[in-house]
């Protein structure tokens, strides 16, 4: 394992120190328990939007803390959900009296830990609502699985709902908007290589040179099937088709297209793939209204990508376009 680290057990803590040093005008970091929160928190009278999850997906979630997006993020160890006391500490730091919306990715650990924290915060008299995002079409949503995973769509959800909260939406309105975004967004990912979790020291799975893994999540877990490597035209279609069929998206729909790197895929390849996705959507009569291209929901150094398509309306576009000032996304502010 070759990584720029000192000790696997201090990776997150040391990385948070660097994040705070780099973006002290936007965010603050506290430790024990670890929370990343807006430098100007709490914002009185504003709904506080909090998310969190395992580390290793940066910039998700800490890089999205700031004006117009998240009020706080609770960073767990690499690929491990944060603990309830972290989420409780986040609530205490950013609750501005207008209620708290927790955005949780649908993984058993995340849901259980946020659920526990929400119980404690409610007992303290805070109005806490929880939304669970599950946009990954690779997982069958059935009684026989833990349900679909939350992946790329999470970044879009945090931007749109964070914008609305900044713009004055109350807790009911934020929650309703969040549920609509969750119902309208779908994603699918592929890995060309596995990633190595620092405290494990070896790759999570092994792919031969000519193999790719379709339907991966963002925790180095294997996907649904392993297939021979394929040209980009075919690969983008392999990802996009199940996404479009699932909602389903239809001719005439307006969408936000998010082409995401899993961490190790360079932008030159990502833009190449994005161009193909735009063409395929145009062929289907789907209008791409907004785009996001880059490494935003990553899986350490994994090579690979995911495609996320969100069916948008004017309300979602308004809050997508609203000012944001975070470590990873900045416009209009």
């Amino acid at each position, binding site marked *: 394992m070759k990584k720029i680290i000192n000790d696997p057990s201090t990776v997150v803590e040391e990385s948070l120190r660097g994040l705070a040093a780099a973006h002290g005008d936007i965010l603050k970091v506290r430790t024990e328990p670890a929370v990343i929160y807006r430098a100007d928190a709490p914002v009185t009278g504003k709904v506080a939007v909090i998310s969190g999850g395992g580390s290793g997906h940066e910039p998700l979630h800490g890089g999205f803390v700031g004006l117009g997006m998240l009020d706080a993020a609770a960073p767990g160890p690499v690929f*491990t959900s944060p*603990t309830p006391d972290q989420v409780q500490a986040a609530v205490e730091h950013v609750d501005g009296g207008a209620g708290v919306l927790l955005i949780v990715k649908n993984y058993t650990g995340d849901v259980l830990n946020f659920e526990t924290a929400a119980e404690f915060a409610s007992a303290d008299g805070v109005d806490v609502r929880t939304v669970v995002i599950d946009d990954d079409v690779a997982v069958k949503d059935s009684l026989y*699985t833990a349900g679909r*995973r939350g992946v790329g769509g999470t970044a879009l959800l945090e931007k749109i709902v964070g914008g609305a909260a900044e713009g004055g939406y109350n807790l009911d309105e934020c929650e309703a908007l969040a549920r609509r975004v969750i119902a309208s967004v779908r994603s699918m990912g592929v890995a060309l290589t596995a990633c190595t979790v620092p405290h494990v020291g070896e790759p999570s799975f092994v792919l031969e040179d000519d193999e790719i893994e379709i339907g991966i999540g963002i925790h180095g*877990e*294997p996907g649904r099937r392993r297939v021979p490597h394929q040209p980009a035209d075919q690969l983008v279609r392999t990802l996009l088709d199940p996404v479009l069929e699932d909602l389903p998206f239809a001719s005439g729909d307006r969408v936000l297209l998010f082409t995401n790197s899993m961490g190790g895929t360079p932008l030159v390849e990502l833009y190449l793939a994005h161009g193909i996705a735009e063409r395929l959507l145009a062929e289907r009569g789907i209008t791409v209204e907004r785009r996001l291209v880059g490494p935003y929901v990553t899986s350490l150094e994994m090579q690979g990508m995911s495609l996320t398509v969100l069916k948008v309306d004017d309300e979602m576009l308004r809050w997508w376009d609203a000012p944001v000032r975070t470590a990873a996304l900045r416009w209009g502010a």
Partner: protein
Amino acid sequence: MTCDATGVIAAIRSAAAVVDEHRDELVDLDREIGDADHGENLKRGFTAVLSKLDNAGDTPGAVLKVVASTLISTVGGAAGPLYGTAFLRAAAKLGTTGTLTPESVVDALDAALEGVVARGKAEAGDKTMVDALTPAVAAARAASGSVADVLKAAADAADQGAQDTVPLVARKGRASYLGERSAGHMDPGARSTALLLRAFADAAQGATP
């Protein structure tokens, strides 16, 4: 070991040692069908527990409550809330009683199982820690004799239960994403449950009554 708070603290210490010793094994099991963090998470949790045991309380229930809250705040993943809930429910069942009896141990194990099922919503056969804990509770209830005998029966049944998760297809937790590909691997949560019960049983050998 005695069957009071001191004995329980000793049993928790041996459990922490067992978790430390089997950390790599649990990580490897989890890498096959999950995300390779189970051994690391439990080790972090039980290391934190060790630092709190000295003044953990003077009843078995009080000690287990400290274990529960420490695991909830340090383990993360699904295992944190699930093991935390298990120890919390066991502690609540024991109440303020100063000495464990075979009957109270069985009731505490049963309460732990109920808590895990309520929190995680898994059933027997879903390839989770419930598959180790369910037969353990049944065996403990059927056993007769001392606290050590009851715990040994539970540990033996949990070992078998963990073994029996190998052919199962996971229906809960991260392994469920793999569908049929999850078959052929032991569930890491069932394995850690079996390890913990074995540690308790071994610690209880020679205990009274």
